[in-house]
């Protein structure tokens, strides 16, 4: 089982849900395919989808919802 990471494409604030009153895009343990949206990064009030470039099982998130993230920072760990 190879360990892979989903990286933030941009610096900003990371969100796990499309909106505060909606369920998260992905939960720990969920399967992920290439292109799946796993969260949003807000950069200067504009929201950008974070799409997975790897496939497998999302083992755990490495940052909390609404955490500040840097470009290239690992957001989640994927096994597969």
């Amino acid at each position: 089982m190879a360990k892979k990471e989903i990286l933030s494409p941009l610096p900003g604030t990371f969100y796990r849900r499309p909106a505060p009153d909606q369920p998260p895009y992905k939960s720990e343990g969920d399967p992920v395919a290439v292109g799946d949206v796993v969260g949003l990064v807000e950069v200067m009030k504009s929201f950008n989808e974070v799409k997975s470039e790897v496939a497998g099982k999302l083992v755990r998130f490495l940052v909390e919802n609404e955490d500040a993230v840097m470009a290239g920072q690992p957001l989640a760990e994927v096994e597969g």
Partner: protein
Amino acid sequence: MAIRTLLVANRGEIALRIQRAARELGIRVVQAHSAADRDSLPVRLADAAIEIGPPPAKKSYLAIPAIVEAATKVGADAVHPGYGFLAENGEFADACEVAGLVFVGPTGDTIRAMGDKVEARRLAAEAGVPTVPGSAGRIHELDEAREVLARTGFPVMIKAAAGGGGRGIRIARDEEELARLWPQARAEALAAFGDGGLYLEKRIERARHLEVQVLGDGQRVIHLFERDCSLQRRRQKLWEEAPAVRLDPAVRERLCAAAVRLAERVHYRGAGTVEFLFDEATGDFYFLEMNTRIQVEHPVTEEITGIDLVKAMLEIAGGAPLPFRQEEIAPRGHAIEVRINAEDPARDFAPHPGRIASLELPGGPGVRIDTALYAGYEVPPFYDSLLMKLIARGRDREEALARLERALAELAIGGIPTTAALHRALVRTPEVRAWDVHTAWLEPWLDTNRRLLA
């Protein structure tokens, strides 16, 4: 009681603007800041600084308990909210008052009344301020719509009563089109919002955005004339002028008087702006909303009136009566502000945080720069993209335009793309020079002039 220590609960250029006003009044300045703003100019220039939370605004500049606690801890007797963030949050104003702090702005009740669009429209109507003609409430049948049309005429907008953000809006240009679009609009509203209620509003074509600056002390209100903010992209202002171009003096007088009546109606305290749609073809204007804070574009008003609005806010918040009488406000010349944002106009205005590798600022007669940038500064990704306001003033609009063009040529921001490229193109555009523009003018212009921005 005059303010002795002020907590500035904002960041960027407006934090610095507030600090400058406070310092000139002999007020001690404490800068509240997030972890991302430790190296910012406002933090460096303040008498003291206090960290209020991590980078995301929700945990710092929007965290009411953290800000109130910081203000108490540093011994501040007043808090200035700037614009954005908590500036129009009635609960924040209340929380300051409860903690024994002066909130530099109107009361929580005024903020809430003007923040509620229906209530604001009602107050405006009560104060004899014209609102956009339309149906009083929701209507369901086309027959009811015909009665409303007697007042609105064509074209008319059909809007979903439960809608928002532009969804479900249709424009009917004649009776036939209305009859065709009505059932569609109803069905769509029902499907999208579970509510088929519609309302009608007169469609103002080629409208300009005019707004009147007011200043009140809770008893008396004066106006500082109007601004024209018709150059907008996706409802975001990019370029603002004072006074409004080609505004008939009689219309100007009615417009400013209407703004004062509304502000008087709510016993307005502090600096505020009453926004209007202006139909140049008929000379009619209609109330849009009132902003209960200092606005980004306030410098153009300061440049033509010679009045420091932020200083006036601080004096009024300290308990002083209005420092000016209406007769003392005499505008002179013309001022233009352009917003330099960290956005790439060549890539559909994508936001672009990053390091300011180099910075060369314009100067000379009639040029004012409001910014918190310095060479080597790292623009953080967490907040809005406004980097700088470049304001040019002249004896008349021609001179202001010439100075703006000259200042934009001197300005050099290295490291990240900015909207300066857009303004260099706009300042040479005939429609802008002739002010043959309206609030929906810029977007199609951008579509056809992309090559000028590359």
